[in-house]
C-alpha cells in the first residue's frame, strides 16, 4: 500500500513535469513546477526526511516560484511602431513587406531573436510627434529618403545595446538612430528604467 502511494506520487510528479514543459503560457508552467515541488516535498516527508522536505517546500515551491513570477513580470513584449513615410501615408501590407525585406529590419529582428525577447511590429496611426509622446512604443521607425530613422527612448538600456550592435556592423545597415527625452511620471520611470 505504501509503495503504491509512493508510486502514485512519482507518477503525478512526472505528469506535472510534462505539463510544465508543454504549457503554452509561462505562468502555467511556473504553477506546474510549484506543484511538482510540493509533491517532491511530500515524498521526502513520506520517506522520513522532514528536514529535506521543508527545504524543498521553501526553496522549490516558495522562493523559486516567486523568483520566476518576478522574472515573468519583467519579461514583456517589445513594441516597434512603424510610422508611415511623410510623402505617402499608405500603411498597407505591401509597404510592410517592403520594410521587412530591408536590411535594417532584418538586423533588428535578428537582435531580438538572439536575445529571446518577444517582439511585435505594429503600424502607428498617429503622426510622428504624437507617437513619440506615446509611451507604448519602445522603438519608432520612420522611413526617410534613403534610410530608416529609429527613434529610441533616452534611457532604454536594450535599445542602447541595439544601437551599439548596429554601429558595430558598419554603416551599410541603412539605420540611423535618434534619441529623444521621454517625459514620464516618476513611478513609471522607475519601473521601466532598467529595460
Amino acid at each position, binding site marked *: 500500500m505504501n509503495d503504491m502511494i509512493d508510486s502514485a506520487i512519482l507518477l503525478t510528479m512526472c505528469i506535472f513535469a510534462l505539463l510544465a514543459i508543454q504549457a503554452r503560457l509561462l505562468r502555467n508552467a511556473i504553477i506546474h513546477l510549484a506543484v511538482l515541488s510540493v509533491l517532491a516535498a511530500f515524498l521526502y516527508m513520506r520517506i522520513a526526511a522532514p528536514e529535506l522536505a*521543508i527545504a524543498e517546500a*521553501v526553496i522549490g515551491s*516558495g522562493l523559486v516560484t*516567486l523568483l520566476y513570477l518576478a522574472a515573468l*513580470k519583467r519579461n514583456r513584449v517589445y513594441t516597434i511602431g512603424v510610422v508611415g513615410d511623410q510623402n505617402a501615408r499608405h500603411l498597407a501590407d505591401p509597404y510592410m513587406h517592403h520594410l521587412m525585406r530591408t536590411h535594417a529590419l532584418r538586423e533588428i529582428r535578428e537582435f531580438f531573436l538572439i536575445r529571446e525577447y518577444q517582439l511585435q511590429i505594429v503600424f502607428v496611426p498617429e503622426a510622428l510627434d504624437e507617437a513619440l509622446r506615446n509611451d507604448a512604443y519602445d522603438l519608432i521607425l520612420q522611413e526617410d529618403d534613403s534610410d530608416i530613422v529609429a527613434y529610441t527612448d533616452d534611457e532604454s538600456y536594450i535599445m542602447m545595446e541595439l544601437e551599439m550592435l548596429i554601429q558595430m556592423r558598419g554603416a551599410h545597415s541603412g539605420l540611423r538612430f535618434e534619441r529623444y527625452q521621454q517625459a514620464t511620471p516618476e513611478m513609471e520611470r522607475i519601473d521601466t528604467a*532598467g529595460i
Partner: protein
Amino acid sequence: MKNETITADSIILQLAIGLLFPFMLLFGFYIILNGHYTPGGGFQGGGILASLFIARYIIFPVEDTDSEMLHTIQRIFLSAILLVPLCLLFTGVLAQYPNMQKHYLTLMDILIGVQVGFGLGVAVLRFAFFQGSGQTWHL
C-alpha cells in the same frame, strides 16, 4: 499599453500575496526559532524571509528599499556567524555551561536566517532593479 500589461494580469496575484504576506513572515520566524528541535532552521527560514522580498517586489514594484543598507546588515550578520562560534566554542565558554547549548543554537539559527534572507533578498532586488549590472556583487 505598457502599464496595462504590467498591472492588469496580476491583480489576483497581488491580492493573494498581500493576504499571505504576514503569515509568511510569521512562518519564517517560526521555522528559524524552532530550528534546533524541529525540522527547519536558519537556511530554510531565511529562504522564506527572502521570498518576502520577492513577494513585495511583485505586489509593489517601487525601488524604495535601500539595498546598500541591507547589504551592510547582511555583511555584519555574516561576520557574526564567523565570530560567535569562534568566541563561544573555541574559548571553551560553551563547554562550561552545558545548558546554554539551546540558546547558542537558537542564536546561530537567527544569525544564519537573517543572513540568508537578506543576502538572497538583496540579490533579488539587484536583479529586479539593476539587472545585475552596475556595482559588482561581493560578500
